[in-house]
């Protein structure tokens, strides 16, 4: 397989790079100064693209690679890949489901605790030496708060399981009610937001779910409500979120994702009721290795004409 060209869209895992280098002819797209020239020269040898949540395969890239057979994404979300185009052209697409579910759910709970109990703010308070001048104020209890989940897929269910161990009542919104669950269903996000204290976004990003958390939803969540986003930045109308937080119309937010990563609205930097993370939902050594192994496994299966491990298209 050493002659098969694999185009890696952006840096994502040094272990994955190393292993791809051993098995394929790896091109690092981010190191290429003249993209068009490069594509003209190598288009005929590139049969696979490896992408992730930041860079994948859009229509333009797919069109410029006539020999492309498979896009293997180092992510569970596929919003950076033009799935319809892949379907039309018979290009296979794989992702890395399951292996990152627990990490993302763990971080969602970590964000809830950090926002309600002001853990990051406490840490700043101690490091600045402020404790000597007085005690830190009271914070909000997490156990028993009602948690509303948008999207009850693998990640949503894993969040629900964890929050239940804290005695939190769980409710959810999905397009249609799920059978086999006792969690309370609401047929709209606004109703869900009106009936929970913590709202967490855990659905896939599609044209329908873009800005699924808009001004109306934030109003429904209210000035004591907490928004947690471990999905994708564009799930939330970020401009509205910033003004809701600045004006005290929303109680707080824990955000792992943003609309224009790595740009984060600077107005949020001074707020103590927000926790801001650089998209690290799946960011653990253990999980990134498992994700890399899944990307490699899918590529090898494809080129050996075996069934794909985690096909989407």
């Amino acid at each position, binding site marked *: 397989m050493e002659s098969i060209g694999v185009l890696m869209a952006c*840096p994502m895992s040094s272990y994955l790079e190393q292993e791809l280098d051993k098995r394929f002819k790896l091109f690092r797209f981010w190191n290429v100064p003249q993209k068009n020239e490069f594509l003209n020269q190598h288009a005929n040898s590139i049969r696979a693209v490896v992408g992730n949540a930041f860079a994948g395969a859009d229509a333009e890239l797919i069109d410029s690679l006539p020999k492309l057979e498979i896009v293997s994404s180092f992510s569970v979300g596929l919003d950076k890949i033009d799935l319809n185009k892949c379907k039309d052209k018979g290009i296979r697409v794989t992702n890395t489901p399951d292996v990152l579910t*627990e*990490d993302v759910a*763990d*971080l969602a*709970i*970590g*964000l809830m*605790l*950090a926002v309600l*109990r002001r*853990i*990051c703010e*406490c*840490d*700043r*308070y*101690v*490091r600045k*030496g402020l*404790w*000597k001048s007085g*005690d*830190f*104020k*009271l*914070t*909000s*209890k*997490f*156990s*028993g708060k009602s948690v509303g989940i948008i999207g009850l897929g693998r990640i949503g269910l894993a969040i629900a*399981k*964890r929050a*239940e*161990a*804290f*005695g939190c009542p769980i409710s959810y919104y999905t397009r249609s009610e799920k059978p086999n669950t006792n969690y309370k269903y609401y047929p709209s996000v606004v109703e869900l937001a009106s009936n929970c204290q913590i709202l967490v976004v855990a659905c896939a990003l599609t044209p329908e779910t873009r800005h699924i958390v808009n001004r109306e939803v934030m109003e429904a969540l209210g000035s004591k409500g907490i928004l947690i986003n471990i999905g994708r930045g564009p799930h939330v109308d970020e401009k509205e979120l910033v003004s809701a937080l600045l004006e005290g119309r929303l109680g707080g937010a824990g955000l792992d994702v943003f609309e224009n*990563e*790595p*740009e*984060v609205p*600077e107005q949020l*930097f001074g707020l103590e009721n927000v*926790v*801001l*993370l*650089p998209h*690290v939902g799946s*960011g*653990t*050594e*253990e*999980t*990134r290795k498992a994700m890399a192994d899944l990307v490699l496994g899918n590529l090898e299966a494809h080129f050996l004409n075996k069934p794909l491990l985690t096909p989407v298209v």
Partner: protein
Amino acid sequence: MASSDQHQSPETTDLRLLIFHRSPKYGNTCLPKLKTLYRVLDPLDESDPSLLPLSRSVRIMLCIGSTPVTSDTLDKYPNLECIVGTSAGFDHFDLAECRRRGIRVTTAGDSFSDNVADFAVGLLIDVLRRVSAADRFVRAGSWPIKGKFPLGSKVGGKRVGIVGLGSIGSRISKRLEAFGCSIAYTSKRMKPNVPFRFHSNIHDLAINSDVLILCCSLTKETHHIVGKEVLTALGQEGVVINVGRGALVDEKELVQFLKRGEIGGAGLDVYENEPYVPKELFVLDNAVLSPHIAVSTPESFEALEELFTYNIQAFFSNKPLQAQIEYD
């Protein structure tokens, strides 16, 4: 029956004396309400002329927070029968002396347990997933410049050793099981009906754990229970979470182990000389530091007020007390 005669004298039954024992750092917000129910003696209010004479007959004390109760304190109240405590720990009481004098002592019981357990889990996720460090990174504007933030470590699958499986420890175990952690513990004795592996000493627990969570009470036996040996046993990737008391840990050793990278990280809500926190910790990204606030939510204090109000009433009506310390 001299003592029962004394109890029925108007001085003690009608006035229902209560001593309000607190160090000046604690507020007195619950005082007005108490004064509607009891004749409250406040030793910090020296203008009260009856303070000294009434101190001799007072039978019950409300002790605020971790205000020390020493044998000198007890000498001032020779008829004391009961101390209603408001702290989860009891290291500020001279328990041997209380026992000798036949004084019953209560604690905050379960009032804080959910909040402390929540906070312990919050600190653990923060240390493993580097939440506070990542938040600092974003707020410093480093993301667009430096790009990738270093990877964290997975919570699931970690072997968590709980030191003290009481009302807080058992709540921590229940929460962490949902994250897929495996739980083991050490405590004074093995608990019946507990599915977790018991280790008879903390050293064995540390050898078999990725994370140690300290949530036991501070006693002579548990003072510096985590020192050089236990930290070495825990190892380079190991994490210490302390929501118990600062003096459970040999703080100087812990700081050295963290600085030299000989343990993986620490989440600390308590310290040996609060509010002093060793400055060396301020520059470390693998430490998460909070100012002894694991208990501090409005819900905690509501539950606590309910409990101590109940205990004071129970004492005067000869009913059993709640959250009473059992003498060994």
